[in-house]
């Protein structure tokens, strides 16, 4: 009886700070988010052409006061961004194979329109076929749409314009992060280090915004086009430096400034069963010689475990990417650790998959060949950057990356093994929100040409100023974990 009283006393003692805390929480920003089930209801994994970005529009998903702060005058954004980069993409294209006009094309038209081969990235031209083994993601039909001007939101463009020319590279072409403030650091890449400048534009990307919440489905496919991996994650991210969209601007806080923190993420797996309840956080540092801080909550151990961020060359479970393939390419550029030779091997227009504006892009089911449908193609000005690995011990000997010249977004990447064989590639198809001036994560196809496997990541990303450090720290992953 006495012990039972002690037990009750403990409960009361526990409650005191809670009551105090609740008072504080009343003022906290509202967390708006959605579950994977809601996402799948709006758009199933296969055979679902519904325009999810209309049905689940950002306007519907976000509180009006938040959405209102994120939209800007479209014409102003277009003008400002064109001033930053010095051109508008519609003016840059139309010179190669001009006979390819907007309209619908089938893979059977390849003979009729030989210009398609010249205009498309070779791998995409191969994918322009009916779905078939051994890889998912072919497209038998495409719709060529007129080239549109893409742009980043007003605050990103303003930061880019204001800081143009400030970011410096060292004598070897590596960024001096002390000179970077915000925005895209090299809006007009040029000179001997043009390749590095393009890569740093990607490193400092505003892809998906600054603070965001994302639900992502991850599917893996065998060479027989059967599903062998079915998983997914909730992803929360904060940009900790070079902030332009959400307050606080510049550095997120003093710690971010002192520690030179680039980005913080927290990820929780909701499937498959073995991964359910795993959660991790990573703080990425700007210092290229400093390893990122990675904590993993392991579901089966019910324990947070420190991991090494240098374990980045093994394939991520069930997928066709390594950790350094996040967003296509996320490797730290370093003159010491797996350094590259940088070359811009082409700068020309290509007919490439266009960002989806309405989310009607979809994949057919395995029985129908895992084809991408409702896929639009657009002539885009493109940089092709070749990174040749100088250390023969790295998993890849060479990476060839196709960047959109107007947005600096990664379109497509090919990774070659040390025997110079094409090992993996990744095709990124983001979505574009014209009112916000944001490209956000939407869909990607990844392929492994040695193990004959492929995968797809698809998701829905919401800009989320409510994501704070509390979500991405150690306690955050304990709460997210099993």
């Amino acid at each position: 009886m006495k012990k039972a009283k002690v037990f009750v006393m403990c409960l009361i003692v526990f409650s005191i700070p809670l009551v105090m805390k609740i008072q504080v929480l009343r003022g906290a920003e509202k967390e708006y988010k959605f579950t994977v089930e809601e996402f799948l209801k709006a758009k199933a994994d296969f055979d679902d052409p519904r325009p999810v970005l209309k049905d689940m529009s950002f306007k519907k998903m976000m509180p009006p006061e938040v959405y209102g702060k994120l939209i800007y005058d479209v014409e102003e954004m277009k003008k400002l961004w064109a001033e930053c980069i010095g051109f508008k993409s519609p003016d840059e294209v139309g010179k190669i194979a001009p006979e390819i006009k907007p309209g619908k094309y089938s893979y059977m038209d390849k003979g009729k329109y030989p210009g398609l081969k010249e205009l498309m990235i070779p791998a995409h031209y191969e994918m322009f076929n009916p779905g078939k083994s051994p890889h998912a993601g072919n497209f038998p039909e495409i719709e060529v749409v007129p080239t549109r001007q893409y742009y980043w939101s007003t605050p990103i463009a303003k930061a880019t314009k204001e800081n143009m020319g400030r970011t410096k590279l060292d004598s070897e072409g590596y960024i001096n992060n002390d000179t970077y403030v915000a925005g895209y650091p090299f809006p007009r890449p040029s000179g001997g280090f043009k390749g590095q400048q393009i890569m740093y534009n990607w490193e400092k990307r505003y892809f998906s915004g600054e603070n965001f919440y994302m639900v992502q489905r991850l599917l893996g496919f065998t060479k027989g086009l059967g599903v062998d991996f079915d998983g997914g994650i909730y992803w929360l991210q904060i940009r900790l430096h070079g902030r332009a969209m959400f307050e606080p601007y510049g550095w997120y806080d003093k710690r971010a400034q002192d520690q030179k923190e680039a980005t913080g993420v927290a990820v929780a797996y909701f499937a498959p069963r073995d991964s359910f309840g795993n959660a991790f956080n990573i703080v990425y540092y700007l210092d290229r010689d400093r390893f990122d801080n990675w904590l993993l909550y392991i579901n089966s151990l019910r324990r947070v475990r420190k991991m090494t961020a240098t374990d980045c060359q093994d394939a991520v479970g069930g997928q066709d990417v390594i950790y350094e393939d996040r967003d296509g390419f996320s490797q730290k550029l370093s003159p010491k650790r797996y350094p590259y030779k940088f070359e811009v091997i082409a700068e020309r227009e290509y007919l490439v998959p266009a960002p989806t504006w309405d989310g009607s892009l979809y994949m057919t089911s395995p029985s129908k060949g895992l084809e991408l449908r409702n896929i639009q193609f657009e002539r885009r000005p493109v940089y092709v950057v070749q990174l040749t690995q100088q250390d023969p011990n790295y998993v890849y000997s060479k990476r060839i990356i196709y960047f959109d010249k107007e947005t600096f977004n990664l379109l497509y990447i090919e990774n070659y093994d040390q025997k110079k064989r094409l090992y993996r590639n990744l095709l990124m198809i983001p979505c574009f929100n014209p009112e916000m001036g944001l490209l956000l994560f939407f869909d990607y196809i990844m392929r492994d040409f040695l193990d004959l496997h492929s995968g797809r990541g698809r998701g829905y990303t919401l800009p989320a100023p409510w994501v704070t450090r509390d979500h991405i720290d150690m306690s955050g992953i304990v709460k997210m974990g099993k």
Partner: protein
Amino acid sequence: MKKRKLLMFVLMAGLIIALTVSSAFAEEFSVLGRPLKIFGFATQEAAFGLENKYDSENGLHSALMNLFVEGEYQITKDLKFYGSGMLTVDWAYQLNANRDSWNDRLFPKSRDNLNVDDKYWQLLKEARLTWSPGDFMFRAGKQIVSWGELLAFRIMDQINPLDQRRGFSDIEFETTIIPIWLLRADYNPKIKLSWLQDLGFEFVYNPNADFIPNQDLKSGNADGGIWAPNVPISGAHLATTYADIRTPERWKEGNEFGLRVKANMLGAMTTLNFFYGRDNSPVALFAPPYMSPVPPNIFASDGKVLLHPFQEGKYPLLKFVGATIAKEITPLSAVSFLGGVAPVVYLEALYAFDSTFAFSNPLSGGVIQRFGKSDDFRTGMELAWKFKIPALNPRAYFSFTGEFFYRRIMNYPSFEEISGLKTNNYQTFLSVSTSYFHNKLNPSLTWIHDINSNSDYYIPKLVYDLDYHWHFTLGAQFFNGTKKGQLFQMFDDKNEIFFKVAYKWG
């Protein structure tokens, strides 16, 4: 009582079957507008003993089935419920029912203990409510609280008991750690210091709502089944122990308190730990008549006498302080030909005060015993590393986990002995694994070596993951030792090969 057990068994099986055949069995669906995630797995293993001795069964000696279901329901933004249940059945008792060697060696008598896990705390694994307002997290219910850093040797991880009735290397984590009724409160203050990334305080309270101790290996085939240790006694076998172990009275005794401070600072993860509670394993002394045959089974099938130990004991206090640290060794990441991965070193150390042991007089053959006290120091180090061996695997790394464990009995008696322990005790653990064919084929080798007894335990294993549903494992367990009656030597008749198929939902 039997009806109640049967009812629980039927309910559990029914729940699992209903959930698994339901078309709505997705990884996440909505209940009352809130997300409910449900997962599960079913495993069936068949293990074949390789020895034909009195304490083993040559041929099928274990056919463990696990049906596991877990679910998480997000009640509000800050409130969620997690529950899991499992049904474990060893079909070897049914499949071997007509086998003479099985029956002659008295294995069927261990059926009550090992055939079906039908106690409520075995069927209900976890049932806990988590409330996480702001910087706090409160968790109440049947749960696991895991402390420490090492994966193989449990040093700081003393809160939850273990189920090791079926050997050392069980099939799934969920089958070895026993969740118990606990209250946990975490406080993670917002830190403004740049060198300190995270700071957390964790308080754990065990009101002893139900005392669930370690489920250790049992002596004698009639109680321990195929895992009964082969203790060398001239002309006899060690049979079932008759033990009178005093357990702490629910609520009134055996309350436990734990406090842990966690900090992620200067690139290292550190913890300080304090615990006051009960040891999960009993300390027992021989009691009259000490060792004796008990009718009706006086003799074993090989003609030797079956000697039953008689014991009295208790679950003594366990009080310790400890610390852990985990940090990357960054210079090794510069060795690019090995893959450029920085190993992570995990260290933990525990100092227990006034721990209770059974001190035995060696002149009595270990029969005359008394409770003795000594401080107890335990420490261990783990090195987790991944490296490349392109000749063996050009596409994936090899994962290496090596551990060293040291335990010192600080006040070891000068004349008496403590069974199974010396002043200084050492063990090592090594595990190496890799993967082929897009992570589908995963070979691994695990080796535990006890330095004091010079005995070894090996687990070679090959896992084939067909997809996210189906997983197949072919493996073996081998024991050997040079000193009779010491640790792994006592299991060298238990060598086995096993095959397991697992189907996972969600």
